[in-house]
């Protein structure tokens, strides 16, 4: 019970923690205070509670594939918002501070809504005051602690890189995270039969299993998938290009925050 709850909650928290860390590193570098993240998490927790309590209705939509359609819509929205975020971030215009803050708050709140609702749906299965619940909460605290610690480590690592002029380190992680999300959206839309079913095009599970510790970590950071379909790979590459390449067309030679990268 303890191990199960640790793993479940770690998996959910880790993804959120990594995302928040990257955005925090970028926002600190931009000269913004961290308060936005607390607001975003607060909205996200409320969202998670609402989403979890409405999931019984949502699940029945579209012939019982409402969950996939809803999650994919949220994830694609996050990817699009992140694309706009990078474009705005790269422009030297103080009027853009508000939209940048707004996008960070909305994307973190949405991520927290999805990950948090899954934790709530898991926890709701344990009766109040039972010894199982005690064990689960202990495991959950452990899992959340590990997840937040890894996030903090990533934050300081990125902050170090950025302080030394390598701003692109954060954009690289953001691009991989965003691409992983887009690729996952394709997978769940296939699961719901909204995208055509496909065979997998390679299998790296014998090299690096998704169930291994490193596999789980890479899944959380960059959506590692041992057995992807062609559509998933295309979505992934497209997702990376959106974040890394698109700004180069729109924002020419005006990278105010990138000193020497």
């Amino acid at each position, binding site marked *: 019970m303890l191990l199960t709850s640790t793993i479940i909650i770690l998996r959910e928290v880790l993804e959120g923690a990594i995302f928040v860390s990257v955005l925090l590193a970028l926002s600190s570098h931009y000269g913004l205070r961290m308060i936005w993240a607390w607001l975003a998490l607060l909205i996200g927790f409320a969202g998670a509670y609402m989403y979890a309590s409405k999931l*019984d209705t949502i699940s029945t939509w579209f012939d019982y*594939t409402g969950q996939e359609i809803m999650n994919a819509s949220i994830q694609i929205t996050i990817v699009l918002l992140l694309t706009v975020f990078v474009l705005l971030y790269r422009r030297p215009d103080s009027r853009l501070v508000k939209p940048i803050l707004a996008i960070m708050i909305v994307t973190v709140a949405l991520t927290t809504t999805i990950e948090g609702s899954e934790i709530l749906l898991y926890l709701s299965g344990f009766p109040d005051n039972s010894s199982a619940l005690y064990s689960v909460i202990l495991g959950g605290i452990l899992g959340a602690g590990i997840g937040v610690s890894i996030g903090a480590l990533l934050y300081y690592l990125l902050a170090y890189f950025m302080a030394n002029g390598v701003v692109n380190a954060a954009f690289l992680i953001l691009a991989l995270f965003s691409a992983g999300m887009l690729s996952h959206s394709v997978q769940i839309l296939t699961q*719901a039969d909204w*995208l*055509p*079913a496909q065979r997998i095009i390679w299998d790296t599970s014998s090299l690096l299993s998704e169930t291994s510790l490193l596999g789980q970590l890479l899944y959380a950071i960059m959506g590692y998938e041992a057995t992807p379909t062609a559509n998933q790979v295309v979505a992934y590459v497209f997702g990376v290009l959106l974040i890394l390449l698109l700004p180069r067309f729109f924002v020419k030679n005006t990278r105010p925050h990138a000193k020497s990268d």
Partner: protein
Amino acid sequence: MLMMAGKAVAAPEFKIEIKNHLFFPPVLTVPAHTKVKLRVSNQDPTNEEFESYELNREKIILGNSQAVIFIGPLEPGEYPFFGEFNPKTAQGKIIAE
């Protein structure tokens, strides 16, 4: 455009039940090289998460409710799945042949 393609052929439907944190049937045989519609019905009052790394599938099945998951087309072989919320008992596998 892409969205329409998946709807063209009706996939054969198979049913899996969750009861007392166990899957019934624990072993399900489905045709290989074919898209298959799984209808997973959770008879327990508690939520479960249907999960399979081999099938690339993951979905929460709320207590006392059902859900649809499309899988495949699969190469012939065995594809284990489990209930993430009760991984010790809730285990099963799909055999494609």
